[in-house]
């Protein structure tokens, strides 16, 4: 008896197509912030010099990208110094420079060591709450 392979039938092709359509879960914040200084929505009497984020994962720090926006103004890129690479693997320290009063929105994008990319946001107010 011959055992020549038949061409893949309709069901097999459909299964392949269906698996392509069955898109797994859209990204979630895989690496989440466990602790931050200042905390989200903090109202501070004086401007912080640094923002510190502690994650639940080891972070590939050289890929960290941070922007800071005052109120409705355009966001400005903030450099995360390479020296921070020597600190704890789950912490990122971001120098802010001198900030005036206002509501600030800091957005970050980090790469976890396991290859997952996460975006997040930290909002804080300098000066009296509005």
């Amino acid at each position, binding site marked *: *008896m*011959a*055992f020549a*392979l038949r061409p893949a*039938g*309709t*069901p097999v092709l*459909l*299964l392949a197509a*269906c*698996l392509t*359509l*069955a*898109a*797994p*879960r*859209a*990204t*979630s*914040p*895989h*690496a*989440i912030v*466990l602790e931050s200084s200042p905390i989200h929505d903090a109202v501070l009497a004086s401007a912080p010099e640094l923002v510190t984020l502690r994650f*639940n*994962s*080891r972070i*590939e720090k*050289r*890929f960290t*990208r941070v922007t800071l926006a005052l109120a409705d103004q355009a966001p400005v*890129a903030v450099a995360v110094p390479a020296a921070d690479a020597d600190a704890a*693997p*789950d912490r990122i320290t971001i120098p802010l420079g001198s900030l005036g009063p206002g509501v600030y929105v800091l957005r970050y*994008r980090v*790469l*976890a*060591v*396991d*290859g*997952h*990319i*996460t*975006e*997040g*946001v930290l909002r804080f107010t300098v000066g009296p709450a509005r």
Partner: protein
Amino acid sequence: MTLLAGFLDVLLRGFGTIGLAAAVGGLVYLRLVLRPPPGAGGLVAAARGRAVTLIAAGALLAAGAELLLLLLVHPWALAEESGRWPLREFLTTGFGLAGLGRVVLALALAAAARWMRRGGDGAWAVAVCLGVLLMANAAWLAHAVSRLHDRGPLMVGTVLHQLGAVVWVGGLLHLVGFALLWRRAGGPAAEPLGLHVLARFSAVAIAGLVLVVVPGIYLAFSYVGGWGGLVGTGYGVMVLTKVALLGCALVLGGLNFSILRRGESGAGAIAARAPAFIEAEVGLGLTLLLAAASLTSLPPSVDVVADRATPAEVAARFRPAMPRLSSPPVGQLLAVAAPMDDTLAKRQPEEYAWSEYNHHAAGFFVFTMGVLALLDQTGRARWARHWPLGFLGLATFMFVRNDPRAWPLGPAGFWESMVLPDVLQHRLAVVLVVALAVFEWLVRSGRLTRPGGRLVFPLLCASGGTMLLTHSHAMFNLKTEFLTEVSHAPMGLLGVVMAWGRWLEIRLPAADRRIPGWIWAACMATIGLILLVYRES
């Protein structure tokens, strides 16, 4: 951009694991299940040839998926403000190097499989070494590598857990190919060897499942932490979903095992039933691998403390309530809704009301179709066989009401809104629903009689169920979003059970079709009921 990259990341990780299952699981299958006895006939030779082809294909799939991740998805998602992709820097990270390692090993395994086909000396030993290295390499691509504590034990536990899944699901994939060949060869009457192959696979599958479960329990304790994390976080609910899928697969495996124990006297029955059970089990296994890939994108429950829901809050989402009979106007919704690209914005009450109305209307369609399908099962209401036409109404409703900010109701154009994973997933779902309607109505009205055509409905249902299990709006771990999504898991699970129930109804001998027929129809009605009581606030 990060959202879409995350979507592709999980998809490619899932396909990579399926490829690994076909390749490495195939090596185990070839050595332990498909051993050629002295004087083996053409069936074993053909089956071994097919297995080697599938091993090579699996290895190429694993390599291809990883290459796309490394060269395209991640560098694109990590692009700098200038638009430059940091490809070289990314490839020198631990993840990049481990990924390159997988690519090289998988390509080498594909070459070794080709060598095996030619009967080269030492090809088998080389292939086994490559398989072992591929599994070990997986430790550096898993979530465990990023953990701060117990990193080593978690990496080892993950590899053992994955090895069990690869042996089990990969073996099943190969067994489907074997069962088809066996049946074509005349079944047990012509080739009694097939019974021994099935029996040997049962032993290998049990060993694989032990490897899945034992390290899996350790990983669950480490990542979930306790009962609160199991029911109150997205990660915990996905773990429960995986356990439920595994339970369903075990039921099918147990049924196969029991018919095999009947021995030679029931050989005809085995040949008639075993392939159907194996096919359904492989479907559940593939869904499990995709769900596992999806799980890795979620933060472990032990890390989600402030945003954890209580069991009472979760139970409240399933408490029956009157469905919404009206929806907020589009204008009112657009006035309060955040821009589509603001993925971090909080959803407003009007958005919840809009979504609840959508789910309740969808529930009306699905529940009605489920009841009609149950009526059809009784054989006393022939007119009820036209129930698939209800899917057309559902598809139209879903397409129009997908997202009020996107075409045709909102300002964002059709293509502009396609880059958002949520919108893209909903539109893919509309295509699936239309296909469900067309194919199943053609089958039930007698217009489509080809065997392959009858299987379209269960395959699409399996895809829909998997999509629902792995579908998420952004920020799943936040408590409110988790509570919004929590009913999707049981609906996805029911969708997958419905799919493989219908598959069994089609593939089993006529005398065995009654129970799976009732099960899938009941699952559809239950999905409709869950949708009717769905709530987000």
